């Protein structure tokens, strides 16, 4: 009977899919129970404590990994830190919004021990609302550069590990020469560059906020609004994120852009027809800072991690081997990338000010962009 055979087929299929499901779950369980340090075993090591209640009552601290939320350097930091200190490290990497969403949603029961991101205003706000470890000073604090030590907040909730330009002027060498390209931020409003410029959307791209907030603090709200209005009138293209700006720039859709530093250098190093101008008045900076979660259960490891990041040898390694390697180190005795302009000048809005006005400024941009 066809129906009979057919029935069997479906039953078999259902059974198959179910058994696959069970085995998939089984595989997860098995790996959750595996405590080995093998690559696959690492993932569930963190889950072990949360799924098995008895494990959390008497944790042997050295076995539990330190959980770090970060938005860059996830490709190299784990082995570097583990080899240097013997602590185990687990990472959650994502963009600024994803990590901020997680941190905020986890508020009642945080899963992270250290956050290390180039979002200083955000982390400053976390510190102000009492969610970060306060008053701790890393051992080698004296070795911070003047620029970096000026950024450490009074309550000692976070420490800068480096800073990069949230935007430099990048131009397509097929369209402009060093002399004809825009050289200052004010040039972007020049009618010469009508419809030829692009930038990332501060409402979506994480590094674009430090860029615009600098103008809002240094010029005042109204003057800055006037400045950006003049850019929009000049036909400024606003792209969701820096990679989109980069593509538009190499594609020729725009001829110059306010582009995040490492994106700009990445294009140049790939041999794209792109060159970079550091405006003499300074490039607004995005500062990468590290902060420890107040309730962390792994305080020693967390402190070791922050101190490790402030170590000149670590910063040198990040510059030499990392993907986001174009930045100004926060420790003395570290050499920035050789091809990074020697006269690179960074300027920035105060973290506290930028944090307080973030909602207002971003909303202004978001609504502006519609028109």
């Amino acid at each position, binding site marked *: 009977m066809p129906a009979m055979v057919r029935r069997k087929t*479906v039953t078999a299929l259902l059974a198959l899919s179910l058994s696959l499901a069970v085995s998939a779950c089984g595989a997860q369980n098995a790996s959750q129970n595996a405590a080995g340090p093998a690559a696959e075993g690492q993932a569930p090591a*963190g889950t072990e404590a*949360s799924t098995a209640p008895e494990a959390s009552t008497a944790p042997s601290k050295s076995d539990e990994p330190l959980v770090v939320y970060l938005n860059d350097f996830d490709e190299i930091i784990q082995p570097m830190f583990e080899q240097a200190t013997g602590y185990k490290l687990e990472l959650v990497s994502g963009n600024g919004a994803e990590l*901020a969403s997680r941190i905020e949603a986890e508020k*009642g029961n945080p899963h992270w021990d250290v956050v290390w991101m180039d979002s200083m205003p955000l982390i400053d706000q976390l510190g102000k609302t009492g969610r970060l470890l306060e008053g701790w000073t890393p051992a080698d604090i004296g070795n911070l550069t003047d620029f970096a030590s000026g950024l450490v907040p009074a309550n000692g909730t976070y420490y800068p590990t480096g800073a990069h330009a949230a935007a430099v002027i990048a131009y397509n060498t097929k369209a402009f020469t060093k002399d004809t390209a825009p050289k200052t931020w004010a040039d972007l409003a020049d009618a010469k560059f009508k419809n030829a410029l692009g930038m990332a959307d501060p409402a979506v791209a994480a590094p674009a906020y430090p860029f615009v907030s600098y103008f809002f603090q240094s010029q005042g709200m109204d003057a800055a609004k006037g400045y950006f209005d003049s850019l929009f009138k000049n036909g400024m293209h606003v792209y969701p994120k820096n990679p989109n700006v980069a593509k538009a720039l190499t594609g020729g859709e725009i001829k110059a852009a306010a582009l995040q530093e490492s994106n700009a250098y990445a294009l140049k190093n790939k*041999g794209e027809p792109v060159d970079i101008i550091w405006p003499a008045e300074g490039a607004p900076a995005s500062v990468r800072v590290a902060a420890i979660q107040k309730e962390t259960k792994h305080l020693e490891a967390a402190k070791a991690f922050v101190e490790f990041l402030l170590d000149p040898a670590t910063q040198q390694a990040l510059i030499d081997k990392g993907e986001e390697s174009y930045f100004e180190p926060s420790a003395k005795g570290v050499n920035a990338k050789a091809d990074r302009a020697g006269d690179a000048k960074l300027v920035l809005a105060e973290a506290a000010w930028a944090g307080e006005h*973030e909602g207002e400024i971003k909303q202004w941009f978001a609504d502006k962009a*519609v028109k």
Partner: protein
Amino acid sequence: MLAVLFVLILLPLLAVVIQVLFPGIFFGTLKTGDLSLLLDIFRRPLWYASLKNSVLLGLGTTVLATLLGGALAFARSRWAFPTARLLDISVWLLLITPSFILAQGWVMFAAPDGLAAQRLGWDGASALVFQPAGLIAVMTLSKFPLAYLTVKAALQWRVERLSDAARLSGASPWTVLRTVELPLLLPAIASGAMLVFMDTVGDFGLPASIAAVFRFPTLPYSIYSALYTSPIRFDMAGALSFYLVLLIALAMSVQLYAMRKSRFDFLSSRAVESQPRRPARGGSLLALANSAFLAIAIGIPLGSNLLMSLQGDSAGGGFTLDHYRALFQGDSRLAQGLAHSLEIALTAAAIGLVVGFLTAYVLTYTSFRLKKTIDVLSLVSLAVPGIVLGIGYIFIWNQAWLQHIGLLLYGTPWILALGGVAGAIPVITRIMAGAMAQVPERLLAAAQLQGAGFFSRLRTVLAPLVKGALLSAGLTAFGSSVFDLALSSVLYPPNYMTLPVVINKAFEDLRFGYASAATLTGAGLVVLIILSVDLLARGTRRRSRRTTS
């Protein structure tokens, strides 16, 4: 059933919406939120534009994609023609490829400096694509697979004598199609249309990527921008999500109204499994039209990605396989991510199939009072952006007390599986409900009279009759959850990256070639899995027929 849907979909969503009313309720503080946020949609230019754009894009795409998908499904199950199999493969490919990758392909093709302008010398492409109608067209070409699969699943059985009777009464083939065959397909067509609508209004990837060239903010886009703000605005994301849910509810009411009082359970013992027939003439024409269509729908977005994945890193460099080599050299992140994603998708599809099958059963055969609620619920997770649902999942599954009962799922791979199930349920339920609408209840009642228990009725009567849909549903759910980016990017446990997270990261690091290569490799593998399962199932079916004849 209601409870399962509730826990999986509604609870997390509710959590986000409750945030609007009582910010801080999950962290021990109770204060009333600002309800005027809900009205802000008419005050804030961005929000208002987003709502308008979402509705426009949703409606336009729904109409076009349903027509397109329905017509293709009809042609595919009626006629056998060369390249027909290619259509099936393409549909799967489109369905599982993350929408930001498809969009990226379109952007690469049609941007002012894109492939169309540079290699084909066609400068008009940009103006054609980057306008509202162009976006709807692109969306249509990306979302029609949902309508195609739903309608095709419903075409598995044919009751020929209905059409024959009409023909005998002198109706032309066109009249038969219009007055007999199409109306009987109405539930499936409506299901397909709903899926398309949900998936379109909830899509973030496409509008976001296209926004690189053309600004067209939609609700998901504004939701993201609320989350990109610090202090983060969960309340705004919740308020905007509320409007997305409202859109779904409206669309569902329209559907219910359109289908009121009609019966569609036409299957009887005379039903035969439809077999595509070779058309008397025009077979090669069909093949030609099909190929031309696929060249656009698949060729442009995936072809652009293919080109990108083969292009050397240095500008103007020749073709190279470096990016593919890079996938499996160096760190094993991609391989691991792929393994994680497959594991999660398999679990999600299997659990989702059981839940979705039962949900569709409840919707089709019971007079359960909360049926409509279930109906809406089963669709919600498709329209609400994954990141919102993800945040809801954290609220719900990360409460400290859960640890004591071992259910602190956040931070374990289980939370991803759970999210995957939520994502799979709408598709599975719709496809199943479309197929079940044709199976009359009396077939089940007859079995019951013979003493067949509930599960044996499902197993021996219902499941065999809808097995094509079961297969489609399971495979669709599997395929699309492999690439579920938004949800996994906020939920993945430490050191447990999934494939889309790895791909998206490569994209954000400007490694476009690597991202494209990883996508194509991942999608190719998944399609291979899907096709082999599909073929396996078909193979056994065909063999069974041979043994009995």
